[in-house]
């Protein structure tokens, strides 16, 4: 396949960036999207050019590091898929593909397609945990948890923290990410003691990091590679309301 790539290039956060166009003539449809970038970079190095910097690690859709905005969509055209899981068989010979970094005030650009998502870490540090020290735990089966609750908690916990929700949201809101963690712990008995303080603190930091507001467009749910549900956002909305009324 022949593919034309328009890639955002930016030396670092301080300098302005621009699109550069690259032509790839020998792309196999069994390749993953990132393997195509490997080939592009191999080419660039041989041509004494600087390769495109992009984040990636596990390349099996679980670490959440890869983050490309492909043809106007976070992680590209397929649903339930990370960039590294996207394969070239979903593109056509002769296609032009526009690749941009996640864009949000809270995710400043480091270089080319790499952004800084440490804002997510700070939100978790504010309260995305159960305060239990090592060695404090009781027997794992001493608190039965209804299977439906455990399953729902798992669905929320499946979030990989890639930031596609923020990237795709027209407001750059982080509600899906934050609510996934809030929900996971709100659904489990272990999360109850800190339920109110947790949601308050996490929302406070979320706001302070400069994410936008949720307008319920639902785009995050559609573009989320782990298909985290909007129900989580609703759950956080009502937990936050109750927490503020009750405490």
């Amino acid at each position, binding site marked *: 396949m022949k593919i034309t790539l328009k890639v955002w290039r930016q030396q670092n956060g301080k300098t302005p960036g621009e699109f550069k166009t690259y032509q790839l003539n020998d792309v196999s449809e069994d390749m993953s999207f990132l393997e195509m970038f*490997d080939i592009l970079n191999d080419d660039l190095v041989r041509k004494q050019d600087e390769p495109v910097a992009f984040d990636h690690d596990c390349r099996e859709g*679980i670490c959440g590091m890869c983050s490309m905005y492909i043809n106007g969509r976070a992680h590209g055209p397929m649903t339930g898929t990370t960039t590294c899981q996207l394969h070239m068989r979903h593109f056509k010979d002769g296609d032009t593909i526009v690749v941009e970094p996640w864009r949000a005030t809270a995710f400043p650009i480091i270089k080319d397609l790499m952004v800084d998502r440490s804002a997510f870490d700070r939100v978790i540090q504010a309260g995305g945990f159960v305060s239990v020290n090592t060695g404090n735990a009781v027997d794992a089966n001493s608190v039965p948890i209804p*299977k439906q609750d455990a399953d729902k908690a798992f669905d929320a916990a499946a979030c990989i923290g890639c930031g596609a929700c923020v990237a795709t949201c027209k407001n750059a809101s982080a509600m899906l990410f934050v609510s996934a963690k809030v929900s996971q712990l709100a659904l489990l008995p*272990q999360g109850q003691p800190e339920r109110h303080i947790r949601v308050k603190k996490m929302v406070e930091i979320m706001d302070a990091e400069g994410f936008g507001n949720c307008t319920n467009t639902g785009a995050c749910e559609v573009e989320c590679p782990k298909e985290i549900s909007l129900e989580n956002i609703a759950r956080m909305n009502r937990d936050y309301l109750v927490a503020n009324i009750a405490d």
Partner: protein
Amino acid sequence: MKLDAKIPEGAIADKWTKYKATIPLVNPANKRHIEVIVVGTGLAGAAAAATLGEMGYKVKAFCFQDSPRRAHSIAAQGGINAAKNYSNDGDSVHRLFYDTIKGGDYRSREANVHRLAEVSTAIIDQCVAQGVPFAREYGGLLDNRSFGGVQVSRTFYARGQTGQQLLLGAYSALSRQIGRKQVDMFSRHEMLDVVIIDGKARGIIARNLVTGEIERHFGHAVVLATGGYGNVFFLSTNAMGSNVTSIWKAHKKGALFGNPCFTQIHPTCIPVSGDHQSKLTLMSESLRNDGRIWVPKKQNDTRKAVDIPEEERDYYLERRYPAFGNLVPRDIASRAAKERCDAGYGVGTSKMAVYLDFSDSINRLGKKVIEARYGNLFEIYEKITGEDPYTMPMRIYPAVHYTMGGLWVDYNLMTTIPGLYATGECNFSDHGANRLGASALMQGLADGYFVLPITIGEFLSKDIQTKAIPTDHPEFEKAEREVKEKISRMMSINGTQPVDHFHKQLGKVIWEYCGMSRSAEGLQKAKKMVQEIRADFWKNVRVPGKADGMNPELEKALRVADFIELGELMIDDAYSRNESCGGHFREEYQTEDGEALRDDNNYAYVSAWEYKGENEQSVLHKEELIFENVKLVQRSYK
């Protein structure tokens, strides 16, 4: 050098309990002044950093990813073992201990493995308390499943994403300590050397990957938790960034390297599709619970799988190992697949694959049940291959997955450098020559939560008088200078080939000669080839861009340079071990029907290699393994 594993006295079941009770403590007031560096934030690293922080130590944690949540532990799918006996099938600490020793083909240390089995139960308790959503039964209690190499159901799991859930649990504990300012987190930092002052590990040199700055960090002790080195093969199931650099630097500074050639080849991975391939994807071993492995009975059969009638299929694992069938340990399943493909029975375009077929289970249990058990794995498979495993059998082939070898550590998890610890996959300790499924998560968390934070007290309790050493100490300066020199040397080569070119070459050599089967002749040949690759690398590599900023090619180059050196040591180790055991299969040493032939009289030891300098032959030291509680028998899964 005399290797002292410092195994406590007493009966095996009492060693840990007694040792824990007598280990010197550091009082809370002193802990506040003691700094510990933890490198790596996977299960072992995040758990250790969080627990040390909870205990009151000042911790500095490092990871090369953009967030500690992304360490490659996250990709473990299947589950975590624990001797809870919730399934009432006769499981016990002793049985888990025994299975692990046997699974490791009797090349691991009894005392360590027993301790691992003992703390396994506490891990599950801890994780549940953190809010890890393990799979549950309708009654609300935890569900278990069985895994390769054992006959009990002791594996706890969270769909096909157990590693992710456990890591996020540890990450949340770590985040809590970062929030409390007990842990200082350095993301996008890569450790490039360890600093040794007066014979003790006292800090590290790290590169800030964003700014390119070389930084000095002091710690009273240094804990490495940097994972395995499977990427020496270029293609493996490891993450792209997984590397050997930290433990290799430690090795070069004096830490002995244990059993470097013990690598695990996982039997169920998605086969290679072409030269462009950058990594391999694992399909959880749990698939073997319900999938049947087969190849056509006829060589070079080009019919579609569904067109091959039942009687023309060879379910070779069930045929050869009737007792365990498709659930034989990983090394055996992998070699059997290779044997069939080498003999010309392979399937798919590359002929380097076998079928993993779910049609029987789908007929027996229904598609719904199979979907509930493996739905996400099937999705992964379909995304990568474009084929639907519900209607067409999966094609699988073995791939490098885990490295049992690593830095040699004593019972305290301390390397031969005082104050330098290695935990999780980057040490050699618990899995012997082969790791059982669902044991890696167990070991990582055992080391991180329950072992290291206690045993490190042995060293730190003697260090309460030591003040923080300023980082302008000559040893810091020297280490930093060396790192900078190496980087500028690399940048100035300005050759013609990208880093991956050499990495791929190295990977091919190691896979071919030091992979699933090895021979003296091949290893000798491979050693020369690796040396040539090394020379070529330092002459012809091209690292573009600048060192003072984000430069992923430079990161890769630094890692690959270490992989090349490690490759040579792996070959030495494989060559020196004239027996077959676990993941190490020497063609010269096999039984008549092609099974591994151990030599317990001469090789029941841990190889611990000492670095002697560039272009010098490394020296082998041996830690004899003493088995007092299990009888060494030929592993049989028939």
